[in-house]
């Protein structure tokens, strides 16, 4: 058996001259240090690549059934998720694969950043990589829109509104996002073509450059404290290092394969266990009761949009992403030399730490979304709050819910968290203060309820709030 394989291999090897093309690439030397434990840090690029292949394969599968027409997309996705054989698993792999790819790209970039591997002579590796990050995020966002449910519909509207904040060309960009005057018949097909043709084409091109550079420039050796990246001596040093190197295949490649395998297993298991994500309501703009949220990795950005100070929105919405990307892109040009080891680069640790902490905090804030009034449909105050109230106070308690006070104010641990907790409002505010705040509103968040309450209702509401006293 083995002899037959070898014969087949030799036949192709000779005809295609594989020895000095594919063979040379596979066995190109990499630093010998990668054989040690530090080699496990070098695996995330390959895992990202594996995940991209998974996305391409499952994406092609989905495209065989998905109908990219506004009147059918939602139904075809329901069919894929609920009726097609293995459809739910396929969609699940594509969904969890998207999240995994975003996470892996970020881990890969963080590792390269902390190892100082973006410095001379690998600046172009980093720059093509940051473009690949951009393309990955664009894929993640456009993919969510193809779900074509209520969240997707309003996400497109939000994207158009954000694009409109750009100076001068904002209106044009907004029209470009919705492909016309409104989200409608022309919008979905444009996003579909963008998601399955345009961005993937860009990714394939960028990947070709990225991988060419990885092989051509060579994998960076693990940094040593005190050893600076110096463009006069580095190339000669590196050549000497590779002379004592190990072949990429099979010595280093096996770790890439192992980690990629784990990543794919995790994604497939998640897809089998959890299945494809549920679709929201249909994309009907006349269904007003909506709660649009992006997928989990964009929740932090969603939160950022809520907490921008008034008047700075356009600056932050357009400026911050542009600035963040510009910083990534030009980083290796600004800092091509110097220390590579992370123990000599406190600012690098601070930057990564700050980024992780800030985005985690934003994600937590976005998940809670305490700035959004909660629904009061069918809501009731806790029994302990309403027990033993007199007649007007009891009516006031009911008004507290019906007039949506409860949507923004907590009492005894229930209710919205946008405004102050009113559990002990009766102790904190005098009768007149309560009346004035309700009638006139307060600051940027508390509206005036003068038009919404009759004098009797106001008296009942205040009577209820005055029963809320601390010990």
């Amino acid at each position: 058996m083995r002899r037959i394989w070898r014969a087949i291999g030799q036949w192709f090897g000779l005809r295609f001259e594989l020895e000095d093309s594919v063979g040379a690439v596979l066995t190109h030397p990499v630093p010998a240090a990668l054989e040690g434990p530090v080699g496990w840090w070098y695996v995330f690029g390959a895992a990202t690549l594996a995940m991209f292949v998974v996305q391409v394969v499952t994406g092609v599968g989905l495209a065989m059934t998905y109908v990219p027409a506004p009147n059918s997309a939602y139904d075809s996705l329901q069919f894929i998720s609920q009726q097609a054989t293995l459809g739910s698993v396929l969609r699940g792999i594509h969904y969890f694969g998207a999240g995994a790819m975003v996470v892996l790209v970020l881990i890969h970039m963080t590792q390269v950043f902390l190892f100082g591997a973006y410095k001379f002579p690998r600046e172009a590796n980093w720059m093509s990589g940051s473009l690949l990050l951009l393309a990955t995020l664009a894929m993640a966002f456009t993919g969510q829109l193809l779900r074509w449910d209520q969240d997707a519909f309003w996400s497109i509207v939000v994207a158009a509104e954000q694009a409109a904040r750009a100076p001068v060309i904002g209106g044009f960009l907004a029209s470009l996002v919705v492909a016309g005057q409104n989200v409608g018949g022309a919008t979905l097909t444009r996003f579909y073509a963008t998601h399955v043709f345009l961005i993937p084409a860009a990714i394939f091109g960028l990947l070709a450059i990225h991988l060419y550079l990885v092989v051509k420039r060579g994998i960076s050796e693990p940094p040593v404290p005190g050893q600076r990246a110096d463009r006069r001596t580095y190339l000669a040093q590196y050549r000497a290092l590779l002379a004592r190197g190990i072949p990429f295949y099979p010595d280093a490649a096996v770790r890439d394969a192992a980690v990629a395998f784990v990543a794919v297993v995790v994604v497939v298991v998640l897809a089998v266990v959890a299945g494809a994500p549920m679709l929201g309501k249909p994309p009907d703009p006349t269904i007003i009761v909506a709660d649009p949220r992006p997928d989990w990795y964009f929740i932090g950005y969603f939160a950022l949009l809520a907490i921008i100070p008034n008047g700075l929105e356009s600056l932050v919405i357009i400026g911050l992403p542009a600035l963040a990307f510009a910083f990534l892109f030009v980083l290796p040009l600004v800092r091509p030399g110097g220390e590579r080891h992370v123990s000599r680069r406190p600012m690098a640790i601070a930057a990564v730490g700050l980024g992780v902490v800030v985005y985690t905090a934003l994600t937590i804030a976005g998940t809670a979304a305490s700035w959004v009034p909660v629904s009061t449909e069918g809501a009731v105050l806790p029994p302990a709050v309403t027990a033993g109230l007199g007649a007007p106070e009891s009516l006031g308690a009911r008004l507290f819910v019906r007039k949506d006070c409860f949507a923004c104010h907590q009492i005894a641990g229930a209710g919205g968290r946008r405004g102050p907790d009113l559990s002990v409002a009766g102790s904190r505010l005098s009768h007149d203060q309560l009346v004035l705040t309700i009638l006139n509103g307060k600051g940027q968040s508390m509206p005036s309820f003068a038009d919404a309450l009759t004098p009797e209702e106001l008296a009942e509401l205040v009577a209820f709030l005055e029963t809320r006293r601390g010990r």
Partner: protein
Amino acid sequence: MTIGLTAAMAGLVGVPIVGYLIAPLFEREQDTYVAVGDLAHFAGGTTTLVKFEDPSPLAWAGQTANTALWVRRAGDEPVFQVFNVNCTHLGCPVDWRSDAHLFLCPCHGGVYYADGTVAGGPPPRPLFQREWRVDGGKLMVKTQRLPTSGGGAP
């Protein structure tokens, strides 16, 4: 010569494709009014959700050809305010809370009074309003592009 020919080829194909792609963006806003309901449908002092279909949708537009608007009739006279449902912050649909007399936005907590002015939260300006007129006992509303708070503001 080679470069010239290549550039010419790119131009020959490029002009139609770019024109095709960006043409929908420059379509004129149609000056169309759509009937959204009889006057009697809107009682004085109420705010009502109206739904109608885009007068000339693409055949495959499905539900996305629908539009919803909030119509407020403050008093008994046939005087209206017709609001886009889109929050002026980032476009999410605002919901009218008839007991609280407020519009609430589910995304980032924008709040508006019955007349569309901002009552709280991040919105930079009042709710967008549509032109309307009364014709044959019906309320007619002008169709309009997606309103935005940025460069494309109407």
